[in-house]
């Protein structure tokens, strides 16, 4: 959670380049009819807005002043008729823009998600999950709104101002000219204002995430705080932060409170100019009472389109930056791709050979150097060694999540880069250290191994993995929801499910990263048996932590700094008395210490 909160919006300075706008436009162009729909509707709506004011003018000049009852009624009939038309326009633009905004968001999310599925591991290693998440969620929303409501508001603002000016010019062009001088001042002032306001609010958001962080830490560390009697000092420090927040929040709030009055004041000058000129011209019959009324209305209501324009322009930079980030994700090219003539094989059974493989994530820090290994079909290999020795790298290379920088990996005598990724990866059964389940039912999770498996096959895979027993005890058996990430199951149960899932896939190659976390002895035994059944007859690579697993491997590879330190069977390596021997004895003591607990448990009986 704190990750999410502390993930600060990076600072950006989007350049308004043509290419970017073209791409944003293309993202929307697919739904051109919706856009056309709301553009027409909003333009018509703007027109009627001004037309209603004009009708009010005619009401005075043609109806009330001459005392013409019929004119009054006919103008009001028009008013009523166009009100209905206007209501229809409002309905149309809300629907068109609303649907279009959602549609574009949907498209962008889909494109990003689908593209993410093709990207290579290196991308996920260097890109934080939080970064990707906000591209797909908030950035997509922002761009979706830019191309719908953003464009709508700008269109409304611009057409509204222009049409109002045209009507004013029709009524009295000299006065309209005065108003026209005011408009640019109004727009510039408003945009500057909004930019400042936006900046202040960004500051507030930053402080807000700091405050949340402070709360989070104080709650999770409350036991330490209490035992170190840190309460006073903590409050004092937090007071500083909260004080900054107060100042920033207050400043942002009063700055936005200043916006409307400032804009209103500018239009008040225009109104008074109209009154002045209108009053002087009145005697010369250049303007009517209704005309003055109309001018005052036009000027007063011009404030709203100006405000909208300012708001959209000020936030545009942010939306454009969002679009830029989205496109940067979509432009990402996967590192590992099929060769044009890659072969799709049915099976990847056969010997696996690592031939002088070099690998590094960072050229400065080589991980594997000159690594060579020949694994026979059906062999079980245990990889042992300290963190960072290269165990996971070997597995990642084997699964072709990464490819060797130097050297080759051969499957059944063929360089595996000549095969399609799909044909390799779909034949691998993987069991991870922290078993990853998806939210959904137990059955759905198992079927992830093979989508077209029948219910019987699912059950028999579960039986083989020793998972069937606990599944049937669950409230809803195979239909039990496992919760997000499988939170409703124990670690041991999750491991059994992930083994069953791999069994169901009927893979040619097993890759397993053994869990270090302790499970109870009974589950442990079940897991061991399940693993054995799964690995039977299949080539297997196990990053091993448990002695029982290590001991039953055909060969144990002890890695040290990216090189094979020792290799052989358990008996051979013990005899050597080297690195493996040290690891083994330490692990042995640790595993056996579980027996102490059992001894303590019996204690009360002895007393």
């Amino acid at each position, binding site marked *: 959670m704190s990750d999410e909160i502390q993930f600060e919006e990076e600072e950006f300075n989007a350049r308004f380049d043509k290419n970017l706008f073209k791409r944003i436009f293309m993202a929307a162009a697919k739904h051109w009819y919706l856009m056309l729909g709301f553009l027409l509707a909003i333009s018509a709506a703007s027109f009627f807005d001004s037309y209603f004011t004009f009708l009010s003018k005619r009401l*005075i000049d043609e109806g009330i002043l001459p005392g013409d009852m019929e004119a009054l009624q006919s103008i009001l009939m028009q008013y*009523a008729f166009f*009100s209905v038309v206007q209501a229809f326009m409002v309905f149309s633009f809300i629907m068109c823009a609303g649907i279009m905004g959602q549609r574009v968001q949907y498209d962008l999310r889909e494109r990003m998600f689908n593209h993410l*599925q093709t990207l290579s591991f290196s991308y996920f290693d260097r890109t934080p999950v939080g970064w990707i998440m906000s591209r797909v969620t908030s950035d997509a929303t922002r761009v979706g709104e830019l191309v719908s409501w953003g464009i709508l508001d700008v269109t409304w603002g611009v057409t509204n101002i222009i049409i109002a000016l045209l009507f004013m010019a029709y009524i009295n062009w000299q006065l309209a000219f005065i108003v026209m001088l005011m408009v640019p001042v109004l727009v510039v002032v408003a945009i500057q204002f909004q930019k400042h306001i936006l900046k202040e609010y960004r500051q507030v958001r930053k402080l807000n995430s700091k405050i949340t962080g402070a709360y989070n830490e104080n709650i999770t560390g409350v036991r330490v705080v209490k035992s170190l009697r840190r309460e006073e000092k903590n409050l004092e420090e937090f007071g500083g932060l909260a004080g900054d927040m107060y100042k920033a929040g207050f400043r942002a709030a009063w700055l936005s409170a200043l916006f409307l009055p400032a804009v209103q004041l500018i239009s008040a000058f225009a109104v008074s100019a109209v009154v002045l000129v209108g009053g002087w011209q009145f005697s010369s019959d250049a303007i009517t009472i209704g005309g003055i009324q109309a001018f005052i209305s036009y000027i007063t209501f011009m404030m709203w389109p100006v405000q909208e324009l300012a708001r959209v322009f000020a936030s545009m930079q942010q939306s454009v930056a969002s679009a830029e980030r989205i496109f940067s994700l979509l432009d990402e090219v996967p590192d590992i791709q099929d060769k044009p003539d890659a072969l799709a094989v049915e099976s990847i059974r056969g010997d696996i050979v690592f031939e002088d493989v070099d690998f590094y994530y960072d050229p400065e820090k080589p991980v594997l150097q000159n690594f060579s290994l020949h694994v026979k079909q059906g062999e079980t290999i245990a990889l042992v060694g300290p963190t960072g020795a290269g165990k996971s790298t070997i597995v990642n290379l084997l699964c072709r999540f990464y490819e060797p920088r130097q050297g080759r990996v051969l499957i059944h005598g063929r360089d595996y880069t000549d095969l399609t990724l799909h044909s390799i990866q779909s034949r691998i059964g993987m069991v991870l250290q922290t078993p990853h389940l998806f939210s959904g039912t137990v059955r759905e999770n198992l079927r992830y191994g093979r989508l077209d498996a029948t219910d019987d096959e699912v059950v028999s895979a579960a039986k083989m993995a020793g998972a069937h027993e606990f599944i049937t005890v669950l409230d809803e058996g195979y239909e039990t929801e496992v919760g997000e990430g499988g939170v409703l199951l124990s670690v041991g149960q999750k491991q059994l499910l992930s083994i069953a899932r791999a069994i169901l896939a009927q893979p040619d190659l097993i890759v397993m990263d053994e869990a270090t976390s302790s499970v109870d002895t009974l589950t442990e035994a079940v897991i061991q048996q399940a693993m054995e059944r799964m690995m039977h007859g299949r080539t297997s690579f196990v990053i091993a932590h448990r002695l029982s697993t290590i001991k039953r491997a055909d060969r144990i590879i002890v890695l040290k700094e990216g090189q094979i330190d020792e290799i052989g069977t358990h008996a051979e390596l013990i005899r050597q008395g080297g690195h493996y021997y040290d690891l083994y004895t330490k692990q042995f*003591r640790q595993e056996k210490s579980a027996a102490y607990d059992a*001894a303590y448990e019996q204690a009360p009986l002895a007393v």
Partner: protein
Amino acid sequence: MNEQDFDLRETVSNNRVVGLWRITRGFRLVYLLAVVALAIATLARTAIFYLLRYFVDDVLPMADTGLIVLWMALGFIVLALVQGGFTFISGRWAARTAEGISLRLRNFLYDHIQRLTFTYHDQTQTGELLQRATSDVDAMRLFFSEQAIGVGRILLMLFVNWAGIYFLSPYLAWMSVIVIPIIIVASLFFFTKVGKVFEAFQEQEAVLSNRLQENLSGVRVVKAFARQDYEMKRFDVENDKKFRIGVRFAYMHGTFWPVTDLLCSAQMIFGFWLAGMMAIAGDITVGTYMAYVGMLVLIIWPISNLGRLITDMSTAVVSYGRMSEVMRQEREPLADGVLHPEHDLRGDIVFDNVSFAYDGLPDREVDDKTTDGKHSVGVMAEMAKQGMAYKLGETVLHDISFHARPGQTIALLGATGSGKTTLTNLLPRFYDYTAGQIRVDGRELRDYTRDYLRGQIGIVMQEPFLFSRTIRENITFGVAREVTDEEVFAAARAAAVHEVILSFPKGYSTLVGERGVTLSGGQKQRVTLARTLLKNPRILILDDATSSVDTHTESEIREALRRMAENRTTFVIAHRVQSVMTADLILVLAHGRVVQQGTHAELLADAKGIYRQVYDLQARIEDELVSESADHPVSELASELVSVPAD
């Protein structure tokens, strides 16, 4: 207007609206002035129409309008200035109120949370508390800065302009508000409904995010099973659902706004017609007609937003309710007790038939939907996270008796859940024992203030917790005074972590949790050791302090711990016999009882005792190792066996 001038706990009321009123104390005058300023601004706005009326009826017909028109123009500017000025003042004062109240709430909640009891924290999820302190406080802020003042603005506009029309013609005034009740009811109904759809929309957004996150964190599984297409389909299902809710949302707005627009227009046309007829009949002047139409607009159009503000306000009331649930919780009385001596403790500790049971929280109100059902799961998860699989009310320590003399090391040995940590938690009075007596330096433990005891006791917890500050700040975290670099270095050296810290590019200024620098479990553990050393407590509690440490550093830490234990009464919680052999007193715990106590030699002498059994078991394991590698030179193994209990 001092922010700390009153205790917010006094504001708690069972009536949430009353509580909401009470927290405004100290800001009521400012807020009232904000409303008054708003009223003045509204009056000025309405006055403009009266000025317009005068201009049309009296000025324009004049033969020579020269100078008076200038005054008129000036009048419009002055009124606009008054209107703008007071609008701004009102906004500023409302902001001061809203920000001031949230500042006070934030500070209060921060302090309040860190002073709540251990029992409360054991049973409350972090996320739940976090929400009270952040989004609920923000809901309060919005309530005062936007919602309440917004409702005020609309109502003032309605009343002032209505009164303005009433002065022109009472008949017109009554005929102008026919649609108002309809619009208010319709908008309340609509926004309540929209609120629900919006909730569904956000829930779906959360579902979508989860789907994505699952995909990203499970990228290995997805790739290993080559399930990319399947994942795309799954994502599309949720993505499509979100799209549909979005369309529904648009549809609701698309119907509500045109319908209210039509209602408003109907009222306008009706007004035009009535006033127009009156003007033609000569009942009112043209100026009056124009003023009336201007004011009518201000009455009718803003009303449709009233529903939105009112539904928003009701969520603020719910937020207040959630917040007050935290506010009403009892704090730990840190200064309670008669003893708070100037001098340090000697560290003579006697447990006399001590028993302990965790009790629940007296009044834990479960009043809103966030805490139904899921709540208990949350509590269990939180408890499980902290390794406390206890049931409330169940006695977890039974009749514990022993005597620890100053400077002695007491080892607590036993299985997970046997009560070792619980026993040590009684000393700093994190929890109070429920029966028996604990005496420290001859006085009852409860006589000492918690504050004093915690100053005298240092704890190194099993899971090292560091704050996201610099390493130096973390080490000095437990001491109130200024500390010199030499002292910090000395503490770090004693905890065998000085060299490690210096190897970081930024040394002691390295931020914990900073990108690029990750402290291993062992390193974190040693920083907490240094922190405790610097505090220099008289009583030391080491809770399985070497559990998260690799063999390489284990001996270094054990050495550091041994030095720390000198001259302090020390409690060591351990799992294995090796770590406790040198203790002055070993307590073997099982199921919350002391089943054996004595020195290593004494306990070993009891052939049937559990301690002896565990010790033998350990020896057997070593034997097994020896036989396992029979080919290995036995002499070397034997020497290793001897070296294990070396200290």
